Structure formats: structure tokens, C-alpha cells
């Protein structure tokens, strides 16, 4: 035994840094590429989310074209093109072919993308399944050239590998275009590209999407308003809710020379007074150099922050969809008889401000026997997968819908002709995983969602009650009216009325009845905004198609 080399030396030969790219190569499901169907959707979703974020950041009314071409043998070519501000030449390879590269991770503002993983993961997925490079074209202004790149990701180094780069003619003022070849499967139905784009259009009325599906059918979702949503304001993190790891990396990268100035410049709502208080509570000197702060000291700092009373973070950094637009979106998609929407005031979880909005469409053509349809959104992005794991679903289940006239079994979504929409806008939406499919169960968030749903529920209940009353009243009137001809007939015999006098009696009786009982209120107004063709988009054409694509989600 003694002569043998220790096994650890042997093992050490195989121990080395794992590149993030090779990690995700093995764990693609974490990013939403679990199966071909979902992978196709995720790739498009990441590209579209990026395009919309870029357009809004550049204050351009977004116009995004999405083209999916069936290349046979389960391969698809996906082309997404936007009219955004474009990307400078130097950054193109990094943005598309380096994971965890981007601007959004380091700032707090309400945007669709958060981590800088999405689009490069799509590029990686395309590379892994077809071996073909991603083709990127980008142009930042009329007077600038359009740059064309063919990119691979070096998975070992997590760095871009440029296959080809050139300047090309591109007949567009500015914008970005990405073309990917990847393995996938195209299906209609609830979790389809069509559905995703439609739901995106519903909550982003300022966006035009031109979509060409694999059957070469073009669907245009034209923008409904020229008004851009209020531009989200970037905020610094709020001290409450900051975790030790984040704090350490902030300490490492800060340009501040003292702990006090670090606190005042890197966090929101911290002035010199508060900073001193924090330092006092953490038993650290305000003039400690950030670089000198050890892990132990950082832990004390976190405790110090927790002990200190700090004003809540600013909430004007969030732009909700708004009650009107939310309701309008519902009206377009669902032919119901009653709609309502609620935007809650901003709230804070772990130092992050957020707003919850909820909408509800009741009755009409919706089935009364099926479970409620639930549409979830986070920062204007539809969430199509992992409904069961989402805080939104939990909140819907935990709301007592029976109080509002729907039936509901314990631990289940309510049953009834209802579609619910829930939107969470935040500078940092807490997802349960990198694939951004479900919102984590923060009690503050669940509470807000429930409050929004309850408000919708109360509106629904008052509508349903009113409707019931009117129906009852209308039934009574019909009943009374049924006997009016008998009164006419009897009077005819009793006092020898003529035919026309009898008719007059009946007419007068109807008038008296109306006067006595008041005008019958009309409650079921026709929904003029309902768009049948729009509503059809993304619905399954054939039953078996849906069953094939059925996915069983388990935690």
C-alpha cells in the first residue's frame, strides 16, 4: 500500500474547472431545452425577449419578425429580426456566443432578460444539435455598416469562436437579426410558439410581431398603440434582501474606497447617516476599505443591514401593463361576458420592488365544466411551462373562489367559465430556475397575487349576483307577461271589448308592467373587441396533436 501513489493524486489529474458552457451542455433542461418542442420555443422566446428589451431600451417601437422554417428531419431554421438599436461590432460575439455575458445581470431594472444566459444558450443548443453556427447581423445606425458574423461557442473556454465575419449590405436603418439551425418539433396548442407570440402581443400592445410559421403561413400581430410603456428606471439594489454572495461580489468590484461610500453609492435608500448606522450595527468602521472586508466581516455587515431600519426602495422603477390594457388584451382573446383587471400598488420582497396585476374574463363561450385557464406573465413575458410549480398557481389555488361563485375543490384551480391573467413586474423576478418558467414562492409575492385575485373575485361576484338578480327579474316579467293576454280575453268577454280595444288593453298592461318594475337592466353587452381569428391562433387544430405534445410536469 505504502508504495502506491495516493489515489487523490490520480483523481487530481481529472479535476479541473468546469466551463459554464460545458455544464449547460450536460444540463440543458435547466435552461428550458428539455425536449425538441420546448427547445424550439425557448430559442425563439429568448431571441424575441432580447429584441423587445433592446427596442425598448433604445426607445424604438418594436417590430419583430419571427420566421420558423421546417428543414425536415426535425430540423428547423429560426430567424428573428428586430428594429432595435443594434449591437456594436466588438460585442456581437460575446453577447451571442458567451454564456453569462450581458448587461442586465448587473443592474436592477424591469426587463425581460435577466441573466445573460438565454440567447447564448440558444446558440449553444443549435450548435449541439445541428453543428451549424449562429448567423448574426447587426447594424447600429444608418451611417454605420452592417456586421455579419457566424459564431460557435467554445464550450471549454465559454468564449466565442468566430467562424466568419464580414460587412454586408443590409437594407435597414438599425436592428439585429439572428438565424439559428436547430433540432426541434413544432406543434400548436397551449405551449406553442403561436401561443407564446399571441400572449406576448396581448400584454405588449405597442409591439408588432410578424410571424411566419413552419407551414409558411404569415400571421401579423399589429401594434394596438403607438405609446411605449414607461421606460423602466434602473435602480440600485436595496440593502434589505441582499445576500452574502452578492454582497461579496459587489465589494470586490466596487470603486468606492470606504465601506461608508460603498454603502451610499452601491445601494438605494442609503445616505451617510444610514450608512453609519449600518456600520455601527455591524460593528465595522465606516472607513474600512471594501477590498479588506473578509467573509466574516461581510456576514456581520449583512446582520448589520438587517438590524437597520431603511426606507423601502423606490417603486417608480416599475411599469405595469395597466388595468385598461390588461382588460383590452383579454377582450381581444376571449369572448366572455364580463371582464375586469386590477393593478396593485407596488410592494417589496427582499428589497426588490414589484407590482402584481390580475385580470379576469368570465362566461361567454368559455366552458363551465373545465378548470380555469390561467395565463401567467412576468415582466410582460408569458410563462407557458411549469404552471404547477409557480407561485401564481399556488396563489390562485389558495384563493377561496367559492366566495365569488365558482366551484373549487381543495388544492385545485377553480372550475368555471373563467380565464385568469396574472402579471408580475419587478426589477428582479424570482424564478425557480434559469429557464424562467415559474415564479418562486415568496410570501410577499403570494400575498399580493392573492389580494389582486380577491379584488377581481369580488368584482366577479358582484357581477354574477347582479346577473342572477336580473335573470330572476326577467323570469318574473316573462311570467307576468304570459297572463296579460288572458286579462285581455277575459275583459273582452266581460265588457264586450272589440278586438282592437283588447289589443290596446294588452299593450297598456305591458306598459304598466314596465313602469311598475322599472327598466330591465341590460347586462350582457357584446364584446366588440373580440377577434375570432386572433383567438384561434395557437389553438390546436387536431386533438391528437395536442396529446402527442402533452407534457407531464413534475417537480
Amino acid at each position: 500500500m505504502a508504495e502506491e501513489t495516493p489515489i487523490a493524486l490520480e483523481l487530481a489529474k481529472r479535476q479541473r474547472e468546469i466551463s459554464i458552457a460545458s455544464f449547460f451542455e450536460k444540463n440543458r433542461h435547466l435552461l428550458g431545452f428539455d425536449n425538441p418542442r420546448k427547445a424550439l420555443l425557448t430559442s425563439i422566446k429568448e431571441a424575441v425577449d432580447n429584441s423587445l428589451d433592446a427596442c425598448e431600451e433604445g426607445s424604438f417601437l418594436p417590430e419583430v419578425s419571427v420566421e420558423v422554417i421546417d428543414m425536415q428531419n426535425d430540423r428547423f431554421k429560426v430567424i428573428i429580426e428586430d428594429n432595435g438599436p443594434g449591437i456594436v461590432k466588438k460585442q456581437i460575439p460575446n453577447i451571442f456566443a458567451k454564456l453569462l455575458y450581458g448587461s442586465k445581470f448587473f443592474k436592477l431594472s424591469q426587463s425581460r432578460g435577466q441573466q445573460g444566459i438565454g440567447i447564448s444558450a440558444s446558440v449553444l443548443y443549435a450548435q449541439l444539435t445541428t453543428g451549424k453556427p449562429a448567423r448574426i447581423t447587426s447594424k447600429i445606425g444608418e451611417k454605420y455598416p452592417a456586421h455579419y458574423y457566424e459564431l460557435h461557442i467554445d464550450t471549454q473556454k465559454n468564449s466565442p469562436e468566430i467562424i466568419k465575419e464580414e460587412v454586408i449590405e443590409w437594407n435597414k436603418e438599425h436592428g439585429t437579426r439572428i438565424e439559428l439551425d436547430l433540432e426541434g418539433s413544432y406543434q400548436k396548442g397551449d405551449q406553442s410558439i403561436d401561443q407564446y407570440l399571441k400572449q406576448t402581443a396581448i400584454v405588449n400592445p405597442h409591439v408588432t410581431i410578424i410571424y411566419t410559421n413552419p407551414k409558411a403561413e404569415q400571421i401579423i400581430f399589429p401594434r394596438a398603440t403607438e405609446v411605449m410603456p414607461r421606460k423602466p428606471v434602473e435602480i440600485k439594489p436595496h440593502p434589505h434582501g441582499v445576500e452574502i454572495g452578492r454582497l461579496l461580489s459587489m465589494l470586490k468590484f466596487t470603486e468606492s474606497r470606504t465601506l461608508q461610500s460603498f454603502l451610499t453609492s452601491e445601494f438605494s435608500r442609503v445616505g451617510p447617516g444610514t450608512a453609519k448606522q449600518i456600520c455601527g450595527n455591524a460593528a465595522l468602521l465606516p472607513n474600512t476599505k471594501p477590498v479588506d472586508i473578509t467573509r466574516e466581516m461581510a456576514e456581520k455587515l449583512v446582520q448589520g443591514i438587517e438590524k437597520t431600519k431603511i426606507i423601502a426602495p423606490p417603486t417608480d422603477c416599475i411599469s405595469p401593463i395597466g388595468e385598461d390594457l390588461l382588460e383590452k388584451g383579454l377582450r381581444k382573446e376571449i369572448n366572455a361576458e364580463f371582464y375586469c383587471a386590477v393593478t396593485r400598488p407596488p410592494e417589496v420582497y427582499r428589497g426588490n420592488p414589484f407590482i402584481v396585476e390580475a385580470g379576469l374574463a368570465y362566461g361567454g363561450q368559455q366552458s363551465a365544466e373545465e378548470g380555469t385557464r390561467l395565463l401567467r406573465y412576468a415582466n410582460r413575458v408569458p410563462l407557458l411551462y411549469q404552471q404547477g410549480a409557480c407561485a401564481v398557481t399556488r396563489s390562485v389555488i389558495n384563493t377561496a373562489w367559492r366566495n365569488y361563485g365558482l366551484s373549487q375543490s381543495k388544492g385545485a384551480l377553480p372550475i368555471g367559465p373563467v380565464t385568469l391573467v396574472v402579471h408580475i413586474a419587478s426589477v428582479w423576478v424570482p424564478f425557480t430556475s434559469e429557464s424562467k418558467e415559474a415564479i418562486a414562492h415568496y410570501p410577499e409575492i403570494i400575498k399580493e397575487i392573492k389580494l389582486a385575485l380577491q379584488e377581481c373575485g369580488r368584482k366577479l361576484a358582484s357581477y354574477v349576483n347582479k346577473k342572477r338578480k336580473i335573470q330572476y327579474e326577467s323570469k318574473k316579467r316573462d311570467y307576468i307577461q304570459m297572463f296579460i293576454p288572458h286579462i285581455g280575453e277575459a275583459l273582452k268577454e266581460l265588457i264586450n271589448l272589440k278586438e282592437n280595444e283588447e289589443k290596446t288593453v294588452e299593450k297598456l298592461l305591458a306598459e304598466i308592467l314596465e313602469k311598475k318594475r322599472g327598466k330591465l337592466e341590460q347586462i350582457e353587452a357584446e364584446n366588440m373587441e373580440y377577434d375570432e381569428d386572433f383567438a384561434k391562433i395557437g389553438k390546436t387544430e387536431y386533438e391528437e396533436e395536442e396529446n402527442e405534445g402533452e407534457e407531464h410536469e413534475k417537480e
Partner: protein
Amino acid sequence: MRVKSMKKSKQSDVAQKIVSIAENDVYLKIKKKKAPELNMPLRALSNVKYDPKEGFFELLGKMKERTLTASTIKTFAQTLRMMAHAKGIIESDDITTKREMYYISKNWAEAAFTEQPESDTVMDDMEAMMMVNREQLGFIPEEKGGEIAGKLIVIDRDPDTGKEIRIDCTKFGSGAYSIPITVEHLKFETNAKFILAIETAGMFQRLLKHNYWKKANCILASMGGVPTRACRRFLRRLSDDKKLPVYVFADGDPYAYFNIYRTLKVGSGNAAHINEYFCVPEAKFLGVTPQDIIDYKLPSHPLKDIDIKRGKDAIKNDPFVRHYKEWQKAINQMMQMKVRAEQQALAKWGLNYVMDEYLPKKLNKPDTWLP
């Protein structure tokens, strides 16, 4: 005692009254764009009072209204249609039985009566509204009016010739004279001392078989349960005309006391509008009283739930019982005894016991009767 003959409106007057209601309360109101309404006295125990000087249940002022509301529109239409029918039969000098009226309504589609009690109710309401009796409206009941035997001659008329017919009620052998549906035109001759009104046909038969009327010098009347209007009116007229007391001999239970005897004597809540003519205020309850059950050691049955309820209701709500302490005492006694007895229970002491012992004894002791 007030002797009153029924107001006799001429048929044409009644028809005029119907038309006037239809015109004033309904048609003219409609022309003025006002909701038409028909108002009629509420026929219920809660809307009657009992005054022994008057001798019958009199209506209080409560009215019910039928108009264009969901709960009254159907009966409103039905009442009008029935008024129209009544006007028709009065004008053509025809009659309609209560059952026929129910079937005629089947032509009225959704305004048809589902069951006959509904049409009977509307008919009674019409009487109350117009303060006439249904015969004047051309409606006649289906049921028979009771039977008479004993020392009485009824003077009727031949329907064809109008000639007087003398009916001797002693000459029916083991049968009896049947009271007709209308009795207003009858005249009477008698030298009997009293009328014995009997609840059951069985007891009537027993007394008839042994010519009890001869022995007791009386007139026997079989009511066959709750007396019909004709029977009540017949006994009233006979008793008024000939100044004869009426003694009621019925079972010893709450039904006999309040549904049969009380209705005969003072009328009912339901028919409050016509009680004045259809009651026999001078009637007395001879037996079977709760005390009789003890005194004559009668075989008894336990009170049924419905008996107990009737007894309690009577004490609480019946203006007649509330007026007479004797009745309250009797009912409380029965409630305590928890038993009831049928009149035929007297047969326990022998078939003729009722004639030889019970009735003579009771007739001699008015203090054992109930008012």
C-alpha cells in the same frame, strides 16, 4: 236570535256586479295606465272575530290583493276569466258544477287550474269579493247535502210545474230524505222538539233503525262529516223557522269539535264571507265530550299527532274557542287524558245503550253539554 233570510239579489243584478268590477277595478284602471287590482276579504281564522251576540264568525277588515305581481298575476287572470264564465252562465241561465269549472279552465292554457282546490279557492274568493254565494253566480257544488229523517214535512216545488210537493220525512222507512243543493225555497212543518245532528252515517242508521225520532220526538240529521253548506243552511232555516234547538252528537275528538261542530255553529275562517247564512248559532254540543269518555267508561284511542296539533291550534288561534272557557277546559282535559273516543264506542255497553241510556241522560242534563 237574529232571523235573517239570505239577501236575494236578482241574477241580473249579480251579472251587473261582475261587469261593474271588471269595468271599474280593471278596465278603467288600465286605461288610466294604473295597475288593475282585485281586492277581496282574506278568508282565514286570522281575519274573523267571534261575537256571541252575532253568533257567527264575522269578517274583520283584512283584504288580499291580486294584481300584476309575479305571485298574484295568475290568480288575477284566473279570477277574471272565471268572472267572465260566471257572467256567461248567468246570462244563459245555466249552471256549472265546481268540478266542471275546473275542467273548463283547461281551455285557458297557462292560466288553467292544476288541481280543483285551486279553482274552488278562486270561486270562494269571487263570492267573498262580491258578497254573494256561489249559487247566485251559477256555480253548484258536487257533494250531497246530508240526510234527514223524523218528524218533519218539507214543502218543495215540482221543478216542471212549480206545484207544491209535501215530503214527509217519517215515510222513508229505513232510508232518509236527502237535502237538496239549494234549500232557500223550502218550507217546513213540524212538531218535533229538537233536531239531533249526527256526525256519522253509522250512528244515524242505528237511531233510524229503532225509530229513535219517534221516541224522542225529534228530527234526525246526518251530516256525514263536516256539514256541507246546504246542510248547514237547511238546519239553520229549519231551526230559525220552527224555533227548534239543534243538538250535535259527534265523535269525541278535536276534528269533531272544531271542524264539524264549530263550522256548523259559527262557520269557518275559509268561508267567513258567507258564515252569516251558513251557520247555526243556536247549536249545542251534546257529546261525546271528554268528560263523557270518563263518565261512560268509553273505550278510547290515543290522540294522534294531528289531534294534538288541532287542539293546540284551537286554543291558540280559534276565536270561538278563545271565547268559551268551557271549550278550553274540555280541550285541556282531552290533552291530559291523551285519548279520543268515537260515538260508536257506546256500543260497548250494548247496541241500544245509546238510545236507552246515553241520549236520554245527556238530554236531561244540559250542564254536561258544551256551548
